[in-house]
């Protein structure tokens, strides 16, 4: 993807994030961008208006009651109110209860049908299938395909084609995490020893931010991901690129950077396809240069951030598994050159 498109995406993303407090926003459950989240937000608005109405009515009743009762003020207790007031009260309460029952019934039916609609067609979703594994504190993304050569692994950034339903297979890597992209769908837990499935679909191209929604330890707050919805052709291009091995270093600096990578601790945890680095306890870095963010959608993927992250990741995500590395400036520059070249 071109430098231009990346910056464009970045501005789009963080710009949009800025408007969260209004009704826009790329991490906002009432700003749906797909059928799944859309039906949910319709359900929400129905319940919201009905409940508001109920609340207002009850408050009015309360206020009237207070003004009515507040007028009389002597202290000797009423032990047997007149029968007709009793009947009036009984009727009032009974009708209120009936109203409650009716409303609840409506809610029940509507919510049940919505739920059915969302899960029923999960079966015949035969678009893209992605396997998502939660780790402390990042997302491992694996694109499945009938053709084994098209299977590839990436991290924290999921590209999907617009208008195509995408099914997710969710696995818990270590502790329980929860996959939640508010604009596209409700959340689903990733539980160790269990397999869950969910689906989502984006109707407008754009970037949508998701975040872990089940408390998962020290960096629960910094475990996010991006879903980049783009037109089919762009998606295909991206996917085509991802299935390739890493770009071989072109410049001397990049070559030196690769050597640094392979001789420094990086190699103990990360994979770069096409090199000797083949360990997968950290995110797969084969195409790290093509991603918009690092550190699980915490930092924009810029040169400065990369450098600071490599030297001391703990200042951004205290407790994350990436050790500190104090490389010399030359090595660092070279390493970052190399990493950024991995488009």
């Amino acid at each position, binding site marked *: 993807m071109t430098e231009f498109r990346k910056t464009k995406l970045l501005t789009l993303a963080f710009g949009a994030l800025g408007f969260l407090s209004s009704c826009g926003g790329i991490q906002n459950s009432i700003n749906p961008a797909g059928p799944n989240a859309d039906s949910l937000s319709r359900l929400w608005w129905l319940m919201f208006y009905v409940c508001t109405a109920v609340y207002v009515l009850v408050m009015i009743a309360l206020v009237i009651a207070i003004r009515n009762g507040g007028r009389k003020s002597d202290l000797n207790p009423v032990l047997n109110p007149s029968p007709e007031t009793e009947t009036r009260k009984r009727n009032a309460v009974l009708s209120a209860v009936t109203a409650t029952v009716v409303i609840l019934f409506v809610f029940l039916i509507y919510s049940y049908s919505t739920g059915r609609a969302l899960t029923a067609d999960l079966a015949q979703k035969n678009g893209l299938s992605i396997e998502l594994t939660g780790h402390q504190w990042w997302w491992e993304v694996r694109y499945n395909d009938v053709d084994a050569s098209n299977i590839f692994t990436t991290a924290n950034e999921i590209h999907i084609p617009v208008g195509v339903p995408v099914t997710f297979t969710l696995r818990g890597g270590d502790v329980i995490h929860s996959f939640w992209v508010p604009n596209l769908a409700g959340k689903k837990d990733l539980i*160790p020893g269990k397999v869950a499935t969910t689906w989502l679909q984006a109707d407008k191209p754009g970037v949508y931010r998701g975040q872990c929604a089940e408390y998962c330890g020290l960096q629960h707050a910094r475990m996010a991901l991006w879903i980049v919805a783009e037109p089919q052709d762009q998606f295909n291009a991206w996917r085509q690129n991802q299935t390739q091995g890493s770009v071989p270093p072109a410049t001397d600096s990049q070559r*030196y950077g690769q*050597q*640094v990578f392979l*001789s*420094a*601790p990086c*190699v*103990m*945890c990360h994979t770069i396809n096409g090199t000797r680095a083949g*360990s997968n*306890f950290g995110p797969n870095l084969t195409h790290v240069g093509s991603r918009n963010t690092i550190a699980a959608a915490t930092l924009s993927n810029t040169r400065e951030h990369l450098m600071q992250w490599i030297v*001391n990741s*703990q*200042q951004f995500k*205290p*407790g994350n598994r990436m*050790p*500190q*590395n*104090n*490389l*010399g400036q030359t*090595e660092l520059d070279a390493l970052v050159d190399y990493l950024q070249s991995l488009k």
Partner: protein
Amino acid sequence: MRRTIILVIYLYLCISVAGCKREQRQFTAPPATFKPYIVTMSEIQPGSAGPPAPMQNPSEQRAYDTNQGKQLFQQYNCSGCHFNGGGGIGPALMDAQWIYGSNPENIYDTIVEGRPNGMPSFRAKIPDDQVWKLVSYVRSLSGQLPKDVAPTRNDDMNARRSEQRTKREAPKQTSPGEIH
């Protein structure tokens, strides 16, 4: 009466704020000490092996570090040769026998410098603080650590009783010949 209560509370606070090493979680490591070696032609090095190791290992007092060491032990595939401490390709780590010494600094050297007959050198591959975490875990395998610091069982197949329930072995020096 009231005075006694106040006194009790005061003492309680004094004791409490003392703090607890076992639970310390230090995320920013002390600065590591290596420059990457771009080309290593030979494993043989002149002079004494490795950087001089500090006498005691701070990680051995921290349950969190030891637990990290346990995870690293799997991640860095130490279990590939030593299995869950029972040994196989490499010597067992949960018994009393130590070829190159059972002190933290000995184990540090073994990891950083490697040893003859197969133990690779992880110099420059594992940052110092992680090595120390591994060291304290390795020592917990034979019950050398206090029970409240040693790791508990992990969510995995039940291979051995957890380190915190391992009985303490009295380490003794043995020559490579005596193993298997």
